[in-house]
């Protein structure tokens, strides 16, 4: 029982971070109907921005928002300079899906070389800002630590912020409308191009937050060749697919579900199967429920 609850806590914390990454993927998907395979790389670059601010002895509470702003900027630049010109050229149908994928892969390589060039084999460090020692309950150390509570708190705060943005503001309305029907949105006066860039920017910020939190929750260190961030991308993608890839709530639930399942696999079956299970879960969902487990009914698919 004790172990069960501990595993659950670990899973929920990790899952909340996957949720953020899933949101990042969903936002890009809804803006431009592509998956950004450089999303992990962008998150890594933003995390390095955060790490270099922390290295100046500046507070985590300043580093996090600055990293998120950097993430937003990187992502917006990607949309503006890479995806927009690419999607503007009308190619034949087979190319349309292939080229953005390749372009984002190319970008991933460029991000990595830039990071390698600036940081070399130095690693960036993002230590937990508060204690990550588990609380002691009845003489036993549980998985819940101040740091885990903080992570959950930050994720929750960002979710509330995003919900407010999407449901209560004009920008949110424009983002949703342009994703469902760019043409009607343009006729209604929405500058869809700008809104797409905005969608990418928000996605970049969410990805940056995911990157920073993932690092504090894990090893506390990042390197330009980090495998962790490829994993984060894959987990975020799986979470997004579980949630039906269109819906933000779906992304959150998908992330939590995945986090908990993987935590239990790690605890009860074996650590080396965790990564492969993510793939298996993805396959099963795509075959059994291609609209996602939590996919909102009536949501559109590409």
């Amino acid at each position, binding site marked *: 029982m004790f172990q069960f609850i501990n595993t659950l806590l670990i899973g929920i914390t990790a899952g909340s971070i996957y949720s953020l990454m899933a949101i990042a993927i969903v936002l890009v998907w809804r803006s431009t109907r592509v998956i950004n395979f450089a999303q992990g790389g962008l998150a890594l670059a933003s995390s390095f921005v955060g790490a270099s601010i922390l290295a100046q002895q500046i507070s985590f509470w300043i580093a996090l928002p600055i990293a998120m702003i950097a993430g937003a900027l990187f992502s917006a630049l990607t949309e503006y300079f890479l995806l927009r010109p690419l999607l503007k050229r009308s190619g034949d149908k087979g190319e349309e899906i292939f080229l953005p994928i390749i372009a984002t892969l190319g970008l991933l390589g460029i991000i990595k070389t830039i990071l390698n060039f600036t940081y070399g084999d130095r690693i960036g460090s993002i230590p937990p800002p508060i204690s990550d020692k588990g609380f002691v309950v009845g003489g036993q150390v549980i998985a819940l630590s101040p740091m885990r509570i903080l992570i959950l708190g930050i994720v929750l705060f960002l979710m509330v912020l995003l919900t407010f943005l999407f449901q209560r503001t004009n920008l949110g*309305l*424009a983002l949703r409308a342009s994703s469902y*029907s760019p043409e009607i949105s*343009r*006729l*209604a*006066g*929405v500058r869809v191009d700008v809104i797409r860039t905005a969608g990418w920017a928000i996605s970049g910020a969410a990805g940056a937050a995911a990157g920073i939190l993932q690092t504090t929750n894990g090893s506390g260190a990042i390197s330009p060749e980090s495998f962790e961030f490829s994993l984060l991308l894959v987990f975020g993608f799986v979470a997004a697919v579980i949630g039906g890839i269109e819906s933000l709530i779906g992304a959150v639930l998908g992330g939590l579900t995945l986090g908990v399942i993987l935590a239990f696999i790690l605890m009860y079956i074996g650590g080396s199967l965790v990564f492969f299970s993510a793939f298996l879960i993805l396959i099963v969902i795509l075959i059994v429920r291609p609209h996602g487990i939590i996919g909102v009914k*009536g949501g*559109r698919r590409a």
Partner: protein
Amino acid sequence: MALTVSELTIHHGAICAINNVSFTVPQGQLTAVIGANGAGKTTLLRALSGLNKSTHGHATWNAHNLLHSKPESIVRHGVSHVSEGKAVIPELTVNENLELGAIWRKNKRETRETKDQITSIFPRLGERLNQRTDTLSGGERQMLAIGRALMSKPQLLLLDEPSLGLAPLVVEQIFQTIRDLTTTMGLTVVLVEQNAMGALKIADNGIVLNLGKVAVTGTAQSLIADPQVRAAYLGY
């Protein structure tokens, strides 16, 4: 203050959908554009609202050049387009669809007034503001599409087949509303229709398009009386 189109030519690849078309729509009047399937009616309207690129020609509204602007800036110059086939966003609520139409307008108080005005024209929308749009009937969706266009407070309204797929009674109701809008709000309206008789009955003027060219123009009455138009488009 009028819509002036001159020598407009539009190609879709090799197909010439609009071929050297010229006409004028006087301010405050309702002009019906009729023609067979594929005559180029939709293509014409989409060019006027910036969705289609033209090959050649001019089109101006209030001295504003329509052909080299983007849809999102044309709507800011008082031109609203209700595109073909119930132009609403089903995933949004009725209220959000309406709000979308006014999203670029700065003055929130005026926007609210416009919305009140629209819900009094279409009371059924007012009753369903918080419902998701995919729960609406076809007729209600068409009303919402028109309502969304009106939220931009246009002076020129471009309507593409508002009667499409609606029951005769609903069609009559919508046509009547369009007529009333023209008169009471002083709107200028271009109404593209397959239902030629219904459209000409409420219109001031008519334009018959055939294979991308203007075949006949004139007052609505004169078109209804024209034996050729009657034979080809009115079916008697």
